[in-house]
């Protein structure tokens, strides 16, 4: 390691570049947060400072409903994705077989398919299931959103849980079985606690992924259950008002709280900064 007192020119250049890029990354976010204190008719032109636009969350039913739909969808989609993904991850880590390649291939396919393709595929399929086949549940806005939002998240959770369990010794479970624990007890007392950090991280990541999802949501959502990003997307056409920025700021705080929790959980489980970076960028 070089001595900190005599930094070379190139080290400094790296530092300056890094800080500049970080400023670049935060610039539009800072603008959105600043704009949420704008009291005026339009988002782009600054009028004067105030907290009025935050009140939209309580005063405008459309805004409030959109946020509630997003949060509900996020919670349910995260639950579904965590359950399905964790079981798949557990199966891949602890009971590997030739079928595993098929599942891994499918998960890979799900994670590399552009969102727009998922979106345009789900739209006709939901119409087929809900209207042509008459299965009423697929006409429900929340159900459609949960299905759309969970696809990518299932893959993420499965990767996370698999990676965590592969990294831990299966002998712990074997020892538990040798000590006459039933498979259920072994799962509850040994496997589940071992996998828990990955399961929790997967749940919270799925939640934020769902809150963030715009493209699939724009295609599958039905009027009456519009999630927040789709509300923003339609506001884009009719003119952006400061309340968009204000509610987005609130959503940002919510997302960051969830992510801080993920980092905390992973850190307590003994992950380094690099491990956390890998987990958070989707494995």
């Amino acid at each position, binding site marked *: 390691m070089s001595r900190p007192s005599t930094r070379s020119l190139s080290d400094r250049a790296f530092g300056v570049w890094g800080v500049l890029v970080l400023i670049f990354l935060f610039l539009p976010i800072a603008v959105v947060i600043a704009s949420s204190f704008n009291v005026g008719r339009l988002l782009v032109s600054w009028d004067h400072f105030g907290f009025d636009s935050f009140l939209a969350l309580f005063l405008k039913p459309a805004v409030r409903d959109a946020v509630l739909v997003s949060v509900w969808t996020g919670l349910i989609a995260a639950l579904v994705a965590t359950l399905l993904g964790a079981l798949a991850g557990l199966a891949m880590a602890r009971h590997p077989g030739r079928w595993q390649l098929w599942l891994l291939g499918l998960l890979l396919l799900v994670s590399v398919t552009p969102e727009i393709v998922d*979106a345009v595929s789900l739209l006709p399929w939901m119409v087929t299931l809900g209207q042509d086949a008459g299965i009423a549940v697929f006409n429900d806005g929340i159900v459609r959103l949960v299905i759309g939002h969970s696809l990518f998240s299932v893959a993420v959770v499965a990767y996370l849980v698999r990676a965590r369990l592969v990294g831990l010794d299966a002998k712990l479970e074997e020892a538990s079985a040798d000590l006459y624990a039933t498979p259920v007890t072994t799962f509850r007392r040994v496997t589940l606690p071992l996998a828990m950090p990955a399961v929790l991280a997967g749940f919270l990541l799925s939640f934020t992924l769902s809150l963030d999802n715009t493209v699939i949501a724009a295609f599958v959502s039905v009027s009456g259950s519009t999630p927040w990003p789709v509300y923003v997307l339609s506001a884009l056409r009719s003119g952006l008002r400061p309340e968009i920025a204000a509610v987005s700021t609130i959503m940002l705080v919510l997302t960051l709280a969830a992510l801080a929790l993920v980092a905390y959980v992973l850190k307590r489980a003994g992950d380094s900064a690099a491990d956390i970076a890998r987990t*958070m960028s989707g494995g």
Partner: protein
Amino acid sequence: MRKHSGILLALPAWLWLVCFFVVPVAIVVVFSFGEKPDIFSTHSLEHLSFDRYAEVFTPAFFTTFLNTLWIGLAGTAICLVIGMPVAYWMAVKVRPERRGLLVALVMVPFWTNFLVRTIGWQILLAPEGWLSTLAQGIGLPAFEILNTRQAVLLGVVYNYLPLMILPLFVAFDRVSGPLREASADLGAPKWTTFFRITLPLAQPGIIAGVLLVYIPLMGDYITATVLGGAKGNMVGQLVAGQFQTALNWSLGSAMAVVLIGIILVSVAIGAGIVWLVTLPARNRNRLVLGPAEPAAARSVTVPAVVEGAGA
């Protein structure tokens, strides 16, 4: 352990994905061979043909595909050029106790709503926006970048940059400090160490970063919608338009299939180029067993080093 318990555990996820991913995507592929029979229906499968694909390749639509490919390639390249020094700085130059904070700082934009941060750029770039006002204040002309291809390029570079920095950081972080110090101790200049030690070992991370940026970027729909206006059209908008406004599902499906095809083919070509370019390096760095020739003794035994670093 029972033989089938693995399959049973994975079955729910498998069924879920087959039901809501494989089947709908397969249906879209079938749709792409159909047609739009009249203005009231979205598709018909009575006469199957490749006509929709022929339609996609007419100049009216294919220009957008080329435009998207250009934005995809340029955007990924710019992300790599901007992101690589940042990731290297975070993994190597910064004191270890600060790395966690920097990783968190890169993640905050990544996890801010995609649409909202793009709107942030719209506010910044608008003719009556902040940057423009600032520029006019110091005597420059008003901004006219919004609704151009440059604005879309700026938007995608911004939106996907964290996806480049994070895997690169992980990759550089894995190349251990002692290895670089050993190279320096053996008299290698900084650039030689970077190109002969750090870069080859970080190669998987670089490939991961490029794919993580390039694939979603090619299918991007939001950035071009918010920043591109009419001139910044990307395929994502084209596909969405056929499904939502033109209600021509067959043509939209054909476009989606062609988009996936272009992504796959370009990734394959890219992989081929990388393979060819690194071929001489791989031969030079080959681990030579048995009596050492003078030339081989000089070479860096990267494969052995990879195993040593991974253990």
